[in-house]
């Protein structure tokens, strides 16, 4: 039942075979996978999904493979948590948290890497590589190790230590580049032209990006094959934001869900907000910025999918907001203290943006809202350092009683 047809330019619609190409020969536009779902019958597709593996491969018919791919490290089917205490704290009706930290390397990047690696292996690549802000590095290193492929990960040299340690442990070649992510990205683009390697987010990008659709599929399936009313999603390159919408669009087209595309709210950090800035100024293109924010996993100053993210916010009736580093820290605490989910700075951006929307009265009381949490708090511990006090005492009940002014214990 493979529906995958070709690669197609998002700009001029020229088509190409399903190989390792990512840029249109005619107009330099990005390529995207094209499918033909006309043979899909909703009931049988639904039954097939429900009988499928407990991973993203249950959605293989919506991914760019002729035959169901396999991976050594299963990804996806992360929890969708009903967050009533968070909803109460914000005065909202219904909030759900899609916790993508519950993936093999604790971020949504396991999804895109699973798809990119499966395709790279299908195309015969022996070496895998990527430029990364950290989470992708973790995922590429781990999935390459599991698959027995050699890998190189290129990161900005000022990256959080947790993300570097969580990459090198898998036996990859860690290359720390003196520069920011956009410098690393430029270097990898040049290298991708010279070496016959699978750069997951460069020459494998059309396939890689498809992995993000599985978040949409899971959310819809976990809600009983229904769509939420609104999503709040972080924006770095804009790929995740737009691919979640594409996932819903495909299921609407096939008839697996009914209704309209949800409202999409994008979330950026003020210290790197080229898309939010363009939205605020009513532009349909982004001006590049030099990132300066604690949300390093979102620190892409030159977001290639920015124009598409702006278009999605517009056509879905949503918007794109930016929050300060202090709001990000508060967002991390708010999520942790109302849901028990400890997220990294990107999740702080997303939660703080939800709060901003709620405070502004942008969200209706009857709306079902999904907050997309893309990564794990243990990877960015610096963000919470100093945010609370520990009470130190000698091991004596007297000292404890003196430190905490509590009612006397029953004797």
């Amino acid at each position, binding site marked *: 039942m493979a529906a995958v047809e070709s690669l197609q330019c998002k700009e001029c619609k020229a088509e190409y075979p399903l190989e390792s190409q990512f840029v249109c020969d005619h107009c330099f536009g990005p390529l995207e996978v094209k499918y033909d779902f006309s043979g899909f019958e909703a009931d049988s597709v639904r039954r097939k999904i429900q009988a499928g593996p407990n991973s993203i491969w249950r959605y293989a018919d919506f991914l760019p493979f002729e035959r169901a791919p396999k991976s050594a490290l299963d990804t996806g089917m992360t929890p969708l948590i009903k967050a009533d205490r968070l909803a109460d704290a914000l005065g909202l009706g219904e909030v759900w948290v899609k916790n993508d930290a519950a993936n093999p390397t604790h971020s949504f990047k396991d999804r895109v890497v699973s798809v990119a690696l499966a395709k790279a292996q299908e195309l015969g690549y022996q070496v895998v590589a990527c430029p990364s802000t950290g989470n992708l590095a973790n995922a590429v290193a781990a999935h390459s190790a599991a698959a027995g492929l050699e890998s190189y990960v290129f990161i900005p040299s000022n990256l959080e230590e947790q993300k570097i340690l969580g990459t090198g442990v898998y036996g990859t070649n860690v290359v720390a580049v003196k520069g920011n992510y956009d410098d690393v990205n430029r270097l990898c683009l040049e290298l991708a032209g010279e070496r016959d390697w699978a750069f997951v987010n460069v020459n494998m990008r059309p396939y890689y990006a498809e992995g993000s659709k599985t978040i949409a599929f899971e959310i819809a399936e976990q809600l009983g094959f229904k769509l939420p009313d609104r999503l709040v999603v972080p924006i770095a390159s804009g790929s995740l934001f737009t691919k979640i919408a594409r996932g819903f669009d495909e299921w609407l087209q096939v008839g697996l869900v009914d209704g309209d595309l949800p409202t999409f709210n994008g979330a950026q950090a003020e210290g790197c907000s080229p898309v939010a800035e363009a939205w605020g100024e009513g532009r349909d293109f982004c001006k590049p910025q030099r990132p300066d924010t604690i949300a390093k996993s979102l620190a892409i100053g030159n977001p290639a*999918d920015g124009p598409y993210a702006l278009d999605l916010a517009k056509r879905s009736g949503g918007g794109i907001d930016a929050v300060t580093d202090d709001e990000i820290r508060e967002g991390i605490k708010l999520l942790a203290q109302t849901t028990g989910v400890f997220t990294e700075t990107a999740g702080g951006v997303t939660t703080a943006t939800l709060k901003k929307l709620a405070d502004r009265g942008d969200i209706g009381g009857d709306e079902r809202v999904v907050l997309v949490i893309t990564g794990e708090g243990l990877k960015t511990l610096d963000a919470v350092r100093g945010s609370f006090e520990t009470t130190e005492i000698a091991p004596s009940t007297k000292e404890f009683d003196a430190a905490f002014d509590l009612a006397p214990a029953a004797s």
Partner: protein
Amino acid sequence: MSVTVKIPTQLRSVTGGDAETQVEEAGTVGEVLDGLYDRYDGLRDRIAEDGDLRRFVNVYVGGEDIRFLDGLETSVDDGDEVTILPAVAGG
């Protein structure tokens, strides 16, 4: 006075396989590109539209995105390296 231009794989079909070339007598990025357009048939259509660079084309001088500088008016000096790359980002 000579500037080195690095050409991405995606454009080498119109540069006859050239991965790198020299442009003489150019004072700005725009003039460097004009020099390339004169030399390589079909290059202009691939990367430019209505006198400006296409949306998904990035140009760097010494590693710096020209949108942080003066765009096509960015000046170039003898020995500078100009790099043309497709816009791809995300990780």
